[in-house]
């Protein structure tokens, strides 16, 4: 299924204040791949993801989703396929109840109300906050907001899931639930995160960004275990790979 391929070609983007956030990013992600995007604060992860969702447009270079180049004209088509979870859930929740917020997307695509309801219930259930459906989103805790924001995207049934820091501010159990959920999601996933252990579990491939450039791009095990490379990019080895802090026994993979 070639239509889930994402191809970025020499993307460059400068913020209006002159900050060059992307400086020639190139990669190709094929159908069903699950890719972790890592890098220090300010490396350009969020900026890159916003390009993939068609929120920002590159100054130079091109993005193709399937065979379709991402332009303002093809935007509605692309947005239906790419679901994006933003870094700050507050940006994503704006209706008066969690239910209406999750229903916002499906309703925009004019689905019949029964189908909307089915989708809303199932996506809220998936992220484990079905009991919060009638609450106003701005009265939820940080983690609950995060879960609601993820549900809003799941309800759109996207082919490609783009997530910016999905596990930040989730408690361990919700984090685990999300990871299991994402493991079950067979479509293409692109996840920008500082949660290297999640990348290790979830993504077979990792792209490391630094100062708006791709430093390396390859199999996760090889990259995340490269202590020198990790250090250079302002990261460190995933906890799962470090020895036990108590008994100091080194783990092997």
């Amino acid at each position, binding site marked *: 299924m070639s239509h889930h391929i994402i191809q970025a070609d020499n993307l460059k983007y400068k913020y209006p204040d002159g900050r060059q956030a992307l400086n020639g990013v190139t990669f190709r992600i094929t159908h069903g791949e699950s890719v972790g995007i890592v890098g220090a604060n300010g490396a350009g992860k969020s900026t890159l993801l916003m390009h993939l969702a068609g929120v920002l447009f590159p100054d130079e270079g091109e993005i193709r989703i399937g065979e379709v180049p991402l332009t303002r004209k093809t935007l509605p088509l692309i*947005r239906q396929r790419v679901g994006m979870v933003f870094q700050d859930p507050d940006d994503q929740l*704006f209706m008066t109840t969690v239910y209406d917020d999750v229903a916002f997307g499906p309703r*925009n695509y004019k689905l019949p109300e029964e189908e909307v309801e089915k989708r809303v219930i199932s996506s809220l259930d998936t992220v484990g906050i079905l009991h919060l459906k009638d609450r106003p989103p701005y009265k939820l805790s940080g983690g609950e907001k995060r879960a609601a924001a993820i549900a*809003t995207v799941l309800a759109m049934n996207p082919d490609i899931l783009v997530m910016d820091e999905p596990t930040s501010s989730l408690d361990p159990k919700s984090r685990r639930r999300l990871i299991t959920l994402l493991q079950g999601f067979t479509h293409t996933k692109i996840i920008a995160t500082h949660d290297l252990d999640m990348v290790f579990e979830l993504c077979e491939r990792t792209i490391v960004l630094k100062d708006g450039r791709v430093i390396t791009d390859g199999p996760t095990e090889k990259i995340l275990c490269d202590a020198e490379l990790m250090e250079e990019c302002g990261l460190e080895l995933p906890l799962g790979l470090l020895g036990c802090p108590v008994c100091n026994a080194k783990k092997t993979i």
Partner: protein
Amino acid sequence: MSNPVESLYNIRLLDELAEKKSIIHNVHPLMKVLTTGAYLLVTVSFNKYQLSNMLPLVFYPVIVMSLADIPAIPIFKRVLPALPLITGIGLFNLLYDKSPVLVLPWITIPGGWVSFLSILIKGFLTILAALILIATTGMTKIALALRIMRIPGVFIIQLLLTYRYIAVLLEEAGRIVRAYSLRSAGEKGIKFRDWGPLTGHLLIRSIERAQRVYRSMCCRGFAGEYHTGREKGINTGDILYFAGWSISFLIIRYFNIPAMIGWLMMGVRR
């Protein structure tokens, strides 16, 4: 705006009230918008000396609020910020208009007082009616009604986003004030010299935030229309609601009911 976070809850209170269920909430939004429109027109159309004629207009907000189970005090509080403005406008009447006016058959007072009071009441009632409309209908459904009335989409989006933007602005203001007060070593309020940078900061932050919210709406297929789901049709009850109120407003407009009641009582006494 002494406590932005609190005002935020206040502004959202209207949204929460709009989620309630009652006979009034059930009326089709279009009919409620039209009824409110009729009410505003009739209220504004009274001339400034017809103080006693317009008193029965008070019944509309009272009846709707009690049927819709909307708490009076928070709504009244929300009218207050506009009152200084109205008072300012009305004040000149006190100074310039000294001609005696017959209020009730047995009372005359300077015309300025009458017109001042009537401007105050008109202002209060119109704002109250608008707030009641929002609290019983909700902004998204009002937008739906406007759409049915063929108002151009641009204006409707403008209205919706402005309404959202107020919440965003207050939220950002709340965060800034909180961050400021945590680091201002127990000082009360915000120092005058910090007002400039803080407001500039607030403006930029809220614009950026509004932009991000708008982007995320676009990402979920927002194309300029809110869909509220479960959009029900207009039935006879809805039309009767509108017709009933309109007729009552017209009666209030063209007959001086308090005077009639007055005459009636005098007649009985005689």
